[in-house]
């Protein structure tokens, strides 16, 4: 029999970016809020302190801050005919674990999607015709417009303290910014960061080709800044131990640096660490949640009643908890029925490496969000009909780190070991750069999430099973990017150049790191037949459960997700505050 704790107004599952935002905003509303975080507690001091944190092996290679598959993982297969096998150690994606979630060890690229991305299906049908959407494709509109979300992007960017330069300020196109972006109502809270050698070389070359380079919007402080919660950031020192690490300098935006100290001071906020939620408990009629059950630090099962349940556990864990708790009908790929687990998508990236014998790049001078970007081949700049695919990419360059175990870029003909390798690392370390494309990934009926029939976690619950593979549409998109990046790279006259883009027949490989931009599975939309949550991130079926995070994306945008994840959290909490709390009910 589980121990029962005192009832709370709100219980939040997970204390990463979305959990921290919801905690702060609901506490400000006067509610009694409890956050349950499965991992340990974590703060700048002592956990990200210099010099201990500057340890490539511990954090960059052994994933010290991330989820431990022994405690939580998924199984993966590429098609229904394959047997899914456990993702036994991390590789392709690196979910967070512990206070701050992945938000404490992210890169900090903080984009807004293009307006067209929110209405992708309608945009394609209207401009290029229905035929372009293949039968296997499952793309949908989001049920929300950029315009509705704009104030909430602005809010998140001010809390997180983003450095950048607006390219479209209330409709005015400004040189040096991104001319293709949707209008912003305000300038970025901080000016753009200074850039490294590679980033500047790329921008020069791009400008010469008539493209429009702009500074990557970054959650890395370019100057001193105090956010709306009174939290302070200081300018980044380009330490080169950024993504996969906690920031040693109070410069990278994270729940820790932007929200948590202010939140922890509130008397109506409490958080418990080493508290892993197993299940959301539903009332007998299944229409509301009564609370959650979790395992505490001593391994004891605890029942925590609450009026409002916020799932903020990261995309994968949100969907897993919904499947385990029976919130919404599980998606069945064979019949196409059900919604929870459908439209899992990822990110379609590629890149070209450029080697320059005579340029000293000093790659250890970097930050996780360094770089110039062009959007000349972004979603709203491509004629899908002519090119024969749906999607787009941003193209960028700028070094994040020069850590030698994980960032030793070498010409392809360098031996992998032996005297030739040793010679190669001397010749080429610090003498290369890369231009990358970061692209959309469409959703498909056959890429989805459900419960694994075989493998169990440490509590005996079925692991979640991911069925995912690359599809021809997205491969055509990434090949298109190759055809644009290579001439740009060539124009820079490198001594050696080599490309890596997925080509026809490419199968998903779980081993190399790709991105921790897992999306979908509890998608938002306008009707309960085709989406799991409404436009306010509220479960269609269980109205006092709100599901935050990239699980709401109906397909993946061409950008990194967190700008949108943050905006959606502020949007949802505004609806909860203004509309739900006075009269709890389905909001749509």
């Amino acid at each position, binding site marked *: 029999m589980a121990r029962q704790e005192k009832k709370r107004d709100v219980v939040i599952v997970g204390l990463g970016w979305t959990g921290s935002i919801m905690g702060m905003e609901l506490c400000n509303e006067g509610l009694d809020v409890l956050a349950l975080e499965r991992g340990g507690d974590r703060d700048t001091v002592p956990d990200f302190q210099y010099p201990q944190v*500057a340890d490539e092996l511990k954090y960059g290679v052994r994933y010290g801050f991330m989820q431990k598959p022994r405690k939580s993982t998924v199984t993966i297969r590429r098609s229904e005919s394959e047997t899914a096998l456990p993702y036994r150690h991390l590789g392709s994606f690196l979910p967070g674990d512990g206070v701050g979630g992945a938000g404490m060890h992210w890169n900090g690229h903080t984009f807004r999607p293009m307006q067209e991305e929110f209405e992708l299906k309608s945009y394609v049908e209207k401009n290029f015709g229905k035929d372009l959407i293949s039968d296997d494709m499952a793309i949908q509109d989001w049920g929300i417009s950029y315009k509705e979300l704009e104030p909430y992007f602005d809010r998140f960017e001010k809390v997180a303290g983003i450095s950048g330069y607006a390219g479209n300020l209330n409709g005015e196109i400004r040189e040096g910014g991104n001319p293709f972006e949707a209008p912003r109502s305000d300038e970025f809270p901080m000016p753009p960061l200074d850039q490294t050698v590679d980033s500047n070389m790329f921008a020069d070359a791009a400008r010469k080709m008539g493209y429009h380079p702009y500074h990557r919007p970054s959650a890395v402080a370019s100057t001193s800044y105090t956010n709306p919660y009174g939290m302070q950031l200081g300018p980044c020192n380009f330490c080169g131990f950024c993504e996969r690490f906690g920031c040693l300098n109070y410069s990278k935006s994270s729940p820790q640096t932007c929200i948590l100290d202010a939140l922890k001071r509130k008397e109506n906020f409490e958080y418990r660490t080493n508290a892993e939620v197993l299940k959301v408990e539903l009332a007998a009629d299944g229409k509301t949640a009564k609370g959650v059950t979790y395992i505490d630090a001593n391994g004891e099962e605890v029942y925590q009643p609450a009026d409002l349940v916020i799932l903020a556990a990261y995309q994968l864990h949100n969907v897993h908890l919904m499947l385990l708790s029976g919130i919404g009908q599980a998606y069945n790929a064979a019949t196409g029925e059900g919604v929870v687990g459908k439209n899992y998508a990822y990110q379609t990236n590629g890149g070209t490496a450029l080697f320059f014998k005579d340029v000293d790049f000093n790659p250890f001078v970097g930050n996780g969000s360094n770089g110039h970007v062009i959007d000349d081949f972004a979603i709203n700049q491509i004629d899908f009909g002519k090119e024969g695919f749906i999607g787009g990419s941003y193209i960028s360059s700028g070094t994040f780190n020069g850590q030698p175990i994980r960032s030793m870029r070498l010409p392809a003909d360098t031996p992998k070991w032996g005297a030739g390798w040793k010679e190669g690392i001397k010749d080429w370390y610090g003498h290369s750069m890369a231009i990358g494309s970061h692209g959309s990934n469409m959703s498909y009926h056959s890429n989805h999430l459900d419960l694994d029939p075989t493998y169990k976690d440490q509590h005996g619950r079925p692991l979640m099973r991911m069925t995912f593979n690359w599809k021809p549409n997205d491969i055509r998109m990434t090949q298109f990017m190759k055809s644009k990046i290579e001439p740009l790279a060539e124009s820079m006259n490198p001594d050696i150049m080599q490309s890596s883009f997925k080509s026809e027949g490419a199968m998903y490989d779980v081993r190399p790191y790709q991105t921790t931009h897992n999306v979908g599975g509890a998608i938002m939309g306008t009707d309960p037949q085709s989406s799991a949550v409404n436009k306010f991130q509220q479960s269609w079926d269980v109205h006092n459960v709100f599901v935050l995070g990239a699980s709401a994306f109906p397909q993946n945008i061409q950008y990194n997700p967190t700008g949108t994840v943050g905006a959606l959290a502020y949007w949802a909490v505004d609806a909860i505050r203004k509309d739900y709390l006075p009269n709890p009910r389905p909001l749509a």
Partner: protein
Amino acid sequence: MSDANFKLNRRRFLQAGAAGTMLSAGYASGAFAKTATPALSEFTPEFFTADEWKFIMAATDRLIPADGEGPGALDARVPVFIDGQMAGPFGHAADWYMEGPHDPNAPAQLGYQSPLTPAEVYRAAIAELNAWCNDKHGSIFAELDKATKDSVLTALEKGEIKLESTKGANFFSLLLQNTKEGYFADPMYGGNHDMVAWKYIGFPGARASFREWVGVEKPYPLGPVDISGKRG
């Protein structure tokens, strides 16, 4: 066996000279006295048996040889690093999901699928590979000549030697990865002794502060520091 050790000592001696030259050419120079670390030949491994240790010494010495410019794996004390890793949480797959069933014939792209921990993989693979070398070449791996050692490693890398005992794990790539980790990781883990690998490629280690160097295109002049605060 004494032959292998003799070669090792001589190589270390030669390399000490080379490292000295590198230091005096660098900026933050050799003003700091080297701590007296016992010679690699006198190191007692915590995890590996004597036979396994011979293999680790011999194999890492071929993966990153001492020949030519720059430190080899033995100069960097890579074997000490690997021993520490195998004795610790990594060797025991402390963070990995190890529940069955295991499908060792799964496509490589689905990742690690062996029931063995990394430490168990080393143990089984070294024994099987030594047996293979004995069978094919009449002696264990450590006692083969350089060229034969290289040909064995190449065959292992290409999958031409199939290790039945470690199916579902790729022993060669694990060994190579751990060797490179030991070469470049902070010296507190036992390898990258005296930051030799960082000095060799020009990585400033744990300095982690480069505000004035943003966008500057010229060689960075300072040598590395490690997490303990030592300068290289």
